[in-house]
């Protein structure tokens, strides 16, 4: 094996196992017109943690996620990923609420959108096929996105995000539009790839059950602040309907519904 190949292999290894990135937020504010959605958020997210952000609609949870993903700029405050205040875009990927696949590109080409680092065309194709297999879509490479179901489209979107080996993967209610069973399947899939790849995961969701099923830590956003910071210290894989999980869920719901 010559040296460059070895380097490349090592580079991929570090990208794959590369563990998660830390995220540090200090005094984050975001204003739209006169309305201040986020009023000073301070957060430390350690590498590899699975964080869920819940809150009522309009509480700014998606806004916060977009700031972390670098899609918008905060009105005030600083964000650092892995200690870097700039140039973290390649480290972070956002999975949108909608799949946002290019309808004019076949499934495999859509995954290749995430493969900006791959050297050659054949390598891109091979990597894209690998990732598709990981999300359970082997054999669907040549399909048009239009023929896929909603859940399959989100799987392709997940494959696209994974293909770029993110060290922090942000999810903006990616399962909101899916039916109940497909949701559970997708949750299991997300948990599995998170455990395999070790990236830091931040999921925004309005579904408290989903948050408790997936996350190590749940942040409740209310009035532009982090109103609650709950550790979910339950063993994985978590069984749905677990009484301890139900207790945590109840506490969070009480806070959200002001009971």
């Amino acid at each position, binding site marked *: 094996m010559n040296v460059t190949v070895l380097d490349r292999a090592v580079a991929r290894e570090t990208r794959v196992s590369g563990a998660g990135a830390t995220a540090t937020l200090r005094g984050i504010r975001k204003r739209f017109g006169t309305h201040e959605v986020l009023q000073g958020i301070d957060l430390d997210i350690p590498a590899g943690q699975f964080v869920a952000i819940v809150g009522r609609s309009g509480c700014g949870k998606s806004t916060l996620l977009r700031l972390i*993903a670098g899609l918008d700029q905060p009105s005030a405050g600083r964000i650092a990923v892995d200690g870097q205040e700039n140039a973290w875009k390649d480290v972070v990927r956002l999975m949108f609420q909608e799949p*946002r696949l290019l309808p004019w590109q076949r499934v495999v080409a859509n995954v290749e*959108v995430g493969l*900006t680092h791959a050297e050659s065309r054949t390598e891109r194709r091979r990597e894209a096929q690998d990732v598709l297999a990981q999300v359970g879509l082997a054999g669907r490479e040549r399909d048009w996105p*239009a023929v896929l179901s909603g859940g399959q489209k989100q799987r392709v979107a997940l494959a696209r995000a994974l293909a770029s080996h993110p060290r922090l993967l942000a999810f903006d209610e990616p399962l909101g539009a899916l039916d109940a069973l497909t949701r559970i399947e997708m949750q299991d899939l997300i948990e599995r790839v998170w455990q395999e790849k070790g990236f830091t995961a931040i999921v925004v969701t309005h579904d408290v059950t989903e948050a408790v099923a997936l996350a190590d830590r749940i942040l409740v956003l209310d009035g532009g602040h982090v109103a609650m910071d709950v550790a979910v210290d339950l063993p994985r894989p978590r069984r749905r309907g677990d009484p301890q999980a139900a207790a945590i869920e109840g506490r969070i719901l009480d806070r959200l519904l002001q009971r």
Partner: protein
Amino acid sequence: MKRILPWIVPVLVLLAWQAAAQAGWIRPQVMPAPSAVAEAAWRLSRSGELWANIEVSAWRALAGFAIGGGIGFAFGMANGLSALSETLTDSTLQMVRNIPHLALIPLVILWFGIDEEAKLFLVALGVFFPIYVNTLHGVRSVDTQLLEMGRAYGMSERALFLRVVLPGALPSIFVGLRYGLGIMWLTLIVAETISASSGIGYMAMNAREFMMVDVVVFSILVYAALGKLADSIARLLERVCLAWNPVYAKG
């Protein structure tokens, strides 16, 4: 059976027409029998006159379309992508659009005489606007969510254009293309009929001078066939280029 059904009425009309002409109910100076038209077609294609004229007309049509369509596409893209370019040129173009291009024929004859330039100019001008308007609309209606996705994934401006903007605008561009093809033939027919020394329109006007009604009718049919051919090619292109879109994939 399903395939034959749509053809029954046209065939009956053709038969009735032939019978009426043979019975002497329709004077041949007004409308020649279908067989006479077919004879004229045979005569003209044997002598090579037909092919020479089709070649001249097709060249005018395609060259004018390429020039007008190319400029329309370029302006549509530029104005769709750049606000500055749009502010500078769009209102001017919209003003010019309100002039019926066929109204310029007297002026065009004064400028270019009855040479090739006159026809190219008219066809190009006629084709320009449908292509321009639809390209601009296509670029504008590209899904902003996809643009954001592309940027978030670090696509360069070039990649963004080639992978997101252009394919996203393509369905609308095809609408402009097919509309432009219709205008292309219409303009050419008018231009060739009024002033030309070759081409299908010239063939028809020349035949009129000698009262060869069969050739006139045949020329009209040739125009129809050429128009249909152009539209079929555009449809085929649409099916190939828009195969991803379930609306076009089936047709």
